[in-house]
């Protein structure tokens, strides 16, 4: 198996080197190769690494229905906690799995390191484009026309979680714009609470805010990258939150800690601008507040607009060196589009599907008790269609997140501003990309 993979890799390299000459032998080829995506003969075994809990159940279902394409699930910690590094090591050693779970913001990194197969050569994949929420498809094509580097699995459209009981008791209208949100913040502060907590470490949440404001952090024209953490949209968002921090209208406890949970559970913090998966985080982190929350569309920058940001979401990608591109992409499509799989994943890991049909899964039509019986997923289904499809992640997000987060941490203690952090992050990101010989402007 490993030898065959290595051999296939050699064939692949040769194919690339000959650029256009026909390759002989080997199951896989290049994007230019018309029959690069053809079925293998005989029984096929695939390896799939994912950290999504309960994904074994969906895979077991696939295995029982597809005796000729057997998938073995491998697991590990979530991507940034070690699995991505493992993927890179395994690609280097030539023993990467056939398929892997990769979040949208990490895909460009794998693409830049030439770790991904272009599954766009498989006609089934290309045809599946219309079943996905358009912007999620943009997350896996990485700005190209025909190439596809993964099958979208889930998304994290953002909305506003808020304590409807407290807002009502204090006669504060639910904010529909960010200006109203700030007014509400003052009233909440007067009532002794904080309207929300500004997270210093969730830079992807902040990116979601910028995303909603039609900001772009990265662009790639095919030849080189452009880094733009300091665009007008970014500045607008950064200045807005800086004001809230300066005027002590938001709390700044570190996110995802007990302290943070407690701030919500004790009613000290009244709202959270978060993604659809956040519904579960509140329910488990603030159990005493059951029934008192509601979900409203995210506040807008301009009254009357309907725009949403996104926070999180991942895809299933096929790694370079697989011998079974056709079977792997077939499985990835089934896993992320079929009703039975999406239902299982939604139940076991709160996966919010990236397909348009998936948004109307029966389990997403029900009222949620924790939110007073509100059909909260209706709000998110709307938000999912309001996300800007042009937002692109950079190839060094781990580094960008870490650097900006350092700056944000300093900013909330009064040392510099959020925008300073973005300015520094802009510079360090360009430096990091240059250090990796990634062509970048600036």
């Amino acid at each position, binding site marked *: 198996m490993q030898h065959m993979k290595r051999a296939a890799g050699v064939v692949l390299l040769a194919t690339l080197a000959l650029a256009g000459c026909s390759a002989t032998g080997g199951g896989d080829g290049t994007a230019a190769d018309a029959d690069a995506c053809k079925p293998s003969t005989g029984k096929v075994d695939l390896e799939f690494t994912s950290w999504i809990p309960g994904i074994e159940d969906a895979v077991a279902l696939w295995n029982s229905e597809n005796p000729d394409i057997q998938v073995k699930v*491998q697991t590990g*910690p979530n991507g940034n906690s*070690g699995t991505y590094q493992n993927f890179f090591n395994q690609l280097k050693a030539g023993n990467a799995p056939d398929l892997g779970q990769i979040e949208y913001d990490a895909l460009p990194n794998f693409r830049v390191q030439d770790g991904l197969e272009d599954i766009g050569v498989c006609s089934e994949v290309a045809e599946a484009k219309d079943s996905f929420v358009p912007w999620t498809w943009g997350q896996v094509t990485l700005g190209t026309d025909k190439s596809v580097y993964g099958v979208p699995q889930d998304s994290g459209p953002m909305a506003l979680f808020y304590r409807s009981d407290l807002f009502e008791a204090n006669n504060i209208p639910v904010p529909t714009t960010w200006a109203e949100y700030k007014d509400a913040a003052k009233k909440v502060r007067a009532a002794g609470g904080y309207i929300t907590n500004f997270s210093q470490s969730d830079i992807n949440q902040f990116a979601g805010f910028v995303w909603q404001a039609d900001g772009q952090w990265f662009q790639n024209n095919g030849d080189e990258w452009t880094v733009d953490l300091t665009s007008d949209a970014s500045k607008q968002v950064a200045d807005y939150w800086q004001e809230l921090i300066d005027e002590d209208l938001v709390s700044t406890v570190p996110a995802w800690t007990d302290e943070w949970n407690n701030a919500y559970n004790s009613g000290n913090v009244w709202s959270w601008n978060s993604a659809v998966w956040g519904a579960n985080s509140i329910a488990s*982190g603030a159990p005493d507040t059951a029934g008192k929350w509601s979900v409203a569309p995210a506040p807008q920058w301009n009254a009357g607009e309907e725009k949403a940001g996104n926070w999180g979401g991942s895809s299933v990608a096929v790694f370079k060196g697989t011998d079974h591109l056709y079977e792997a992409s077939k499985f990835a499509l089934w896993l992320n589009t079929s009703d039975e799989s999406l239902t299982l994943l939604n139940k076991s890991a709160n996966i919010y599907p990236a397909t348009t049909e998936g948004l109307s899964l029966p389990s997403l039509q029900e009222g949620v008790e924790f939110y007073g019986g509100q059909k909260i997923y209706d709000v998110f289904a709307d938000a999912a269609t309001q996300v800007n499809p042009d937002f692109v992640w950079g190839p060094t997000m781990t580094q960008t997140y870490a650097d900006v987060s350092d700056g944000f941490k300093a900013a909330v203690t009064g040392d510099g501003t959020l925008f300073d952090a973005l300015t520094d992050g802009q510079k360090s990101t360009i430096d990091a990309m240059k250090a990796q010989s990634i062509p970048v402007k600036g």
Partner: protein
Amino acid sequence: MSSTTLDQNTKQPRSLKPSKASDPSASAGSLKESLLSRTGAMLIMGIFTLYFLIPIWWLFVASSKSQGQLLTTNGLWFADFNLFQNIGDLFAYRDGVFLRWMGNSVLYAGLGGLVATIIAGMCGYALAKYRFPGREVIFNVVLGGVLVPATALALPLFLLFSQAQLTNTFWAVFLPSIVSPFGVYLTRIFAAQSVPDELIEASRIDGAGEIRTFFTVSIRLMAPALVTVFLFQFVAIWNNFFLPLIMLRSEELFPVTFGLYAWNTQLNQVPELRPYVLIGALLSIIPLIVTFLLLQRFWRSGLGTGSLK
């Protein structure tokens, strides 16, 4: 455990300064002074004991709570006592994958520690008792191995094991675990002084081969050092997290530390795992405590010998 610490505390001055402490005719002044310093030392020890035990106490208390009460009640005191219910849930979760991880850890650490001890013991003994060219060179190279952190070796090991197609197997974690440079060092020092040459001569004259001599005579004299090496290696393998992280992908091979870590990284997405991580962490330290309590008597004497030489 606190009694051990205090016990050690009262013994230490005696063994370090035998003339003073064991002399019954010490003057009243020095006795008073030593009482004062002893109280001071006790106080500091007490504070540190508390400092180290509070997290374990917290873990125990947290493990006994239901998920709802976990974040809403006082962290250092009990709410409804659900410990056994929680343990039952953990064992049942995903067909008892946690028990499997515990079993793996016991196998990696127990068997790995045992093999490592035997190899280190033989190696140290050979270096101490046989004269051969290159002996010091070998010893120095091994000693150099002590200085290289295991973490730094994990990635090269991964690439090596990839070549041999042994990643994601039991051997990927087991083989690197049976090497203990520090064990070689310790057993060499210990063998040099605790195994008399005359005894080896005697057994040779009686007709025993070198290997038989080692396993029947020398190994008994080296027991305290060997237990120390075993204990060190057991703890090191049990806590070695980076190697499994890099090597393993199949859940059924995970040691408990890595499995719990993997769960812990999923808490944002699946908060239901939180109680499992906590109870799992509590249960996963029990084998360490048991091993430590059983072997600490040997450990102390072995460590003392190594450090004083």
